């Protein structure tokens, strides 16, 4: 065997090593299970409702995982991108802009709406707009924020998350050329049900299945994006930045640009999930965007294993189930069994916190840890002491 053959072989081994291999088989099996699952449940039941939420949460969590898990940027204001995506569909699939086109409205590829007034675009178009708006918001937030390091990023993004909710809350007092920025607690409603090619118009009053399959499609797309990016030049740069900014930049990785990419992509994915959830909720209400949402999504990633794609999916499914289903089913247990004066829904974050504490004690690397993260935890690899001057 010549040296060239040996080289080719080494490289081929390397290529085989990750991208599809084991993942591919697991993915197919899981997808088949996920696809037939709805047939076991009532088409309007709380089980299917939980599953729709779970798909949305998985997409959110995968998006945040790119920011926090891959690039190591602790973002505590991820709810901002949920809000942006939700308002994108609020603006472009409702009668919010009721005076456009002389009150006759603008309709592109949409066929089911309560009133002619307002802008009504096709869901796919809105998805693109939502992602663009969220990515833009990500860049606006990221540009001043990502020059900071570590914990400072967490604090500043936390503030931006709060700002997003406050803007949504008070947006009904802000008018731009006759239109309110948001409807605050009044909610922008109703939102058009998606109208997709092949399937046609959704009807959440009759059947939730279409929403579930739409959510599942978004999950699959987000998974493909996550896997492709992780094994790419960009993905390696994120890991490098996460492990050691000084070494990364000294190897030619532009820090701010690389972080911005992670932040922007995470934001775009959050925007897509936000638009989806907006359509499903049929209303965009400012109290849908509390700080606790950011924490819930972060908890999903931590539960599953920071940086681990399958772990993130698992964590999101588990917490979605607990949050949307289980706590509701055992709502009255504290009262009936223990004679306590509250329901489980009121202490949900206490319960999540307890789950996380248990996890930190028993399995700090998460349920399905990523190899690298595990090393960082157990061997103290990749801790970054800095000799850097703060600079762009």
């Amino acid at each position: 065997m010549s040296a060239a053959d040996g080289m080719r072989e080494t490289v081929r081994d390397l290529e085989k090593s990750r991208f599809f291999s084991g993942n591919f088989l697991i993915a197919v099996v899981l997808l088949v299970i996920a696809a037939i699952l709805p047939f076991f449940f009532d088409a309007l039941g709380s089980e299917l409702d939980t599953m729709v939420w779970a798909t949305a949460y998985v997409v959110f969590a995968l998006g945040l995982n790119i920011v926090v898990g891959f690039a190591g940027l602790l973002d505590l204001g991820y709810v901002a991108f949920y809000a942006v995506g939700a308002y994108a569909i609020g603006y472009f699939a409702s009668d919010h802009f009721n005076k456009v086109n002389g009150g006759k409205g603008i309709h592109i590829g949409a066929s089911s709406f309560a009133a002619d007034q307002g802008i009504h675009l096709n869901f796919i178009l809105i998805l693109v707009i939502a992602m663009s708006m969220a990515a833009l918001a990500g860049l606006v937030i990221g540009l001043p924020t990502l020059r900071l390091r570590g914990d400072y990023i967490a604090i500043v993004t936390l503030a931006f998350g709060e700002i997003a909710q406050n803007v949504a809350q008070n947006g009904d007092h802000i008018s731009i050329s006759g239109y309110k920025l948001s409807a605050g607690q009044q909610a922008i409603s109703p939102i058009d049900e998606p109208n997709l090619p092949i399937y046609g118009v959704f009807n959440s009053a009759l059947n939730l299945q279409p929403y579930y399959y739409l959510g599942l499609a978004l999950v699959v797309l987000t998974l493909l994006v996550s896997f492709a990016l992780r094994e790419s030049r960009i993905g390696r740069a994120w890991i490098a930045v996460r492990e050691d900014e000084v070494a990364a930049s000294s190897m030619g990785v532009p820090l701010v640009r690389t972080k911005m990419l992670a932040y922007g992509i995470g934001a775009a994915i959050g925007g897509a999930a936000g638009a989806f959830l907006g359509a499903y909720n049929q209303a965009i209400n400012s109290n849908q965007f509390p700080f606790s949402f950011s924490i819930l999504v972060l908890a999903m990633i931590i539960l599953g294993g920071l940086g681990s794609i399958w772990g993130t999916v698992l964590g999101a499914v588990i917490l979605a189930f607990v949050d949307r289903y289980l706590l509701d089913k055992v709502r009255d247990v504290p009262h009936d069994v223990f004679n306590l004066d509250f329901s489980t829904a009121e202490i949900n974050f206490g319960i999540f916190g307890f789950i996380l504490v248990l996890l930190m004690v028993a399995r700090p690397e998460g349920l399905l840890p990523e190899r690298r993260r595990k090393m960082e935890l157990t061997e103290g690899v990749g801790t970054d002491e800095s000799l850097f001057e703060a600079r762009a």
Partner: protein
Amino acid sequence: MEAGAGNGPLLDAVQVSKIFGGLVAVDSVDFSIPERSIVSIIGPNGAGKTTFFNTLTGLYRPTSGRVFFGGDDISRARPDQIVAKGVARTFQNIRLFGTMSAVENVLVGQHARTKAGVIRSILRTPGVRREEREAREKAVELLRYVGLKERAFHEISTNLAYGDQRRLEIARALASDPKLLLLDEPTAGMNPQESAQLTDFMRKLRDERGTTILLIEHDMKVVMGVSERITVLDHGEKIAEGEPQEVRNNPRVVEAYLGKQG
């Protein structure tokens, strides 16, 4: 290769100072590196050698003075921009990406020489696949070149033997096709035999690839053996410069190292 790009120096630092608060770490140093040469900076501990290195590679901005590389002013450039221009470095305390394999470390080193963006990476276009394959081939080739054993290629870098980590750091730096390679105490922690190997390797690198090398080094045997020119720093100031023989006999250098004699 832009051979014959004039007879000017490859790197030229003019009156470079770096001041931290009240501490003058580098004091008005003039310094230049001719193309295809091997030059060293020596000096006692705390003389400002590494600070000077960091100033050249963009980790620090010079407080005053300017740095030119290939005629371009890089005094205010970012580290990644300086890498793109053709300067690569290693670190005194090895800074590999600890959770990455040897090959992956070298792939990160190629960041400035590869292009795949987000959209094309997501779509995994044929162009991206080809670039990725070529990058991996180049990584394997570089690891062989620095003398890493085949079985270490996929080993996580923290698990590598110390000498291999040093080699890997050099391979990672070479991945950006540098015209100038800065080595910060590369023989620290090596035994005499390994140091001798590294000395040979530096010559080979210069002769085969035309790489210019700047070295910070404590091991005088290595420095005297390989350097064509030596610059001596003490308390941030340049106190001597010249060929090894001249520097060795310079009274100020002897004084800096051994203290003033009676």
